[in-house]
């Protein structure tokens, strides 16, 4: 199972939505945001970006919809190469920022969610419908005329997601969507992410420190270190590669740690690779039986 995660990314693919080709970004002060970054997003998948603080996850995310331009390398979105002429990329790729307060600027929730659609230039009435549909999709339609500053952390996050959803993007990138949220709200956001993929066919990129969550919901995990992706693959393959994970300055998810701990404690080896709590429970129960 090891070594499945080779970077074979640079071959084009039919159902590829975003293709980042060896992009580098140097910030004005000289610090390296990303470096030789190769990354892609396929149709209808959830990709998790995992990496230590300062590894370049947020920088990558801001490249996905053209907020930052690569210093070298190129980015292709929906088959169109991103250059200065292609300014409508924000319609295809939505970004949910880590700090909700950065995103919510309008006086009411409705105004905020309508902001994207209004910029797309349909009629106000349609924009309003679009906004309400998005709010319903995240289960926040009752917040309509609240003031964003007075919402709880979890509610703010939901509104941010709705604001992006209202533009009906093909891809949504979320920067640490669950940090600061209590477990119940975090679960809510998790379910919305899964729902967006399964019922709306949207691909989702999440940057996160919560490797257990990444293991639970993502189809593919990319390990980011020092500005580039050093490994990618299915969660079960990546997270069981202890060397890789430690080398990247991370820790294995709880579930994996527990499972490996048990195996080590018993001195046995196994062919199973549980990565969610449910899988772990089943595996262990079958071991005990």
């Amino acid at each position: 199972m090891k070594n499945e995660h080779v970077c074979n990314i640079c071959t084009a693919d039919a159902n590829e939505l975003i293709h980042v080709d060896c992009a580098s970004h140097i910030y004005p002060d000289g610090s390296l945001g990303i470096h030789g970054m190769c990354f892609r997003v396929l149709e209808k998948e959830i990709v998790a970006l995992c990496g230590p603080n300062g590894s370049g996850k947020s920088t990558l995310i801001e490249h996905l919809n053209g907020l930052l331009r690569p210093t070298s390398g190129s980015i292709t979105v929906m088959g169109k190469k991103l250059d200065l002429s292609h300014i409508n990329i924000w319609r295809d790729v939505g970004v949910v920022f880590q700090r909700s307060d950065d995103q919510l600027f309008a006086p009411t929730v409705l105004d905020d969610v309508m902001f994207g659609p209004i910029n797309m230039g349909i009629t106000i009435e349609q924009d309003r419908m679009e906004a309400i549909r998005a709010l319903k999709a995240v289960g926040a339609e009752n917040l309509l005329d609240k003031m964003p500053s007075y919402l709880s952390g979890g509610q703010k996050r939901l509104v941010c997601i709705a604001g992006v959803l209202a533009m009906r993007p093909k891809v949504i990138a979320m920067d640490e969507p669950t940090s600061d949220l209590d477990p119940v709200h975090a679960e809510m956001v998790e379910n919305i992410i899964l729902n967006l993929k399964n019922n709306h066919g949207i691909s989702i990129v999440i940057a996160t420190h919560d490797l257990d969550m990444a293991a639970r919901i993502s189809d593919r995990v990319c390990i980011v270190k020092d500005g580039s992706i050093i490994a990618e693959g299915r969660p079960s393959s990546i997270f069981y590669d202890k060397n890789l994970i430690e080398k990247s300055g991370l820790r294995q998810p709880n579930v994996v740690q527990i499972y490996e701990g048990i195996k080590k404690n018993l001195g046995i080896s196994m062919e199973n690779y549980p990565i969610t709590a449910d899988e772990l429970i089943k595996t262990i129960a079958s071991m005990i039986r």
Partner: protein
Amino acid sequence: MSELSPHIPDLDLITFYSEKGTTLFSRISPWTKGLMLVLIILFVSLDKSLILAMCLYLIVLALYFLSGLPIKKLFQWYTMPFIFVLSLVLILIWNEPGKPIFSLDVPYLPLTITDNGLLLLLTLLFKSLASVTYSLFFLMTTRYNYFSAMIYRVFPSPIDQVFLMSYRFIFITLKMVESMIKALRSRGGGLLKSARRQSKMFAEVFALTMIRSYDRADRINKAMEARGFNGRYVAATRIPRIGIGEYFTMLMATILMIYLIWFAKLPF
């Protein structure tokens, strides 16, 4: 805000009341309330009579009270206007011609307060309180999104854009400053002995506020661009129109004002 200084109106509290919007006055068109503000300013600038100033103040205070707004807070918030009136007028009211009430015997500098001087002070005080109370009443009975929409209509671009966004950002920056001050106080800042160290500490906080505001602005701008911001933010809220009754009231108020100022004969 409340943490920063108790005698300055607390924006959070103001917004809390305006968003609650349960009183009769929250339902009146914001335009009406705005025009009434203009009327009050005109009145206060034209009026020379203490009685009128006092009546105006009492009416405005009654409006404020009837709306269920916090009276105790209001009196705390009067601190600044009070100081402003006193700081200038106290210098100027001495030796006004009139009946002397009270004299200070300073060598070379005879200081006397006369009835006219006192009248002047009180008149100015009531005028100022009337306008302050009405402003706060206006703020606390009008929803934030109406204000935004009004700003959007009234001011030319780009002033409207800067105004709209800064109005939103104020809540962010206030939180930011407040938490910084809290963090400082938690380590014993805030009661320093030396003025030099005191100013240095505040300078550091202010510098950081500026830098962090800059970074925040950058991020917020990015977030807006990520949703297609093209330099024009539209406030979509519809403001309630001025009703017939409201037009009538304003007309009556204007007539009354003209009468009182130019035709009524008042003792003082």
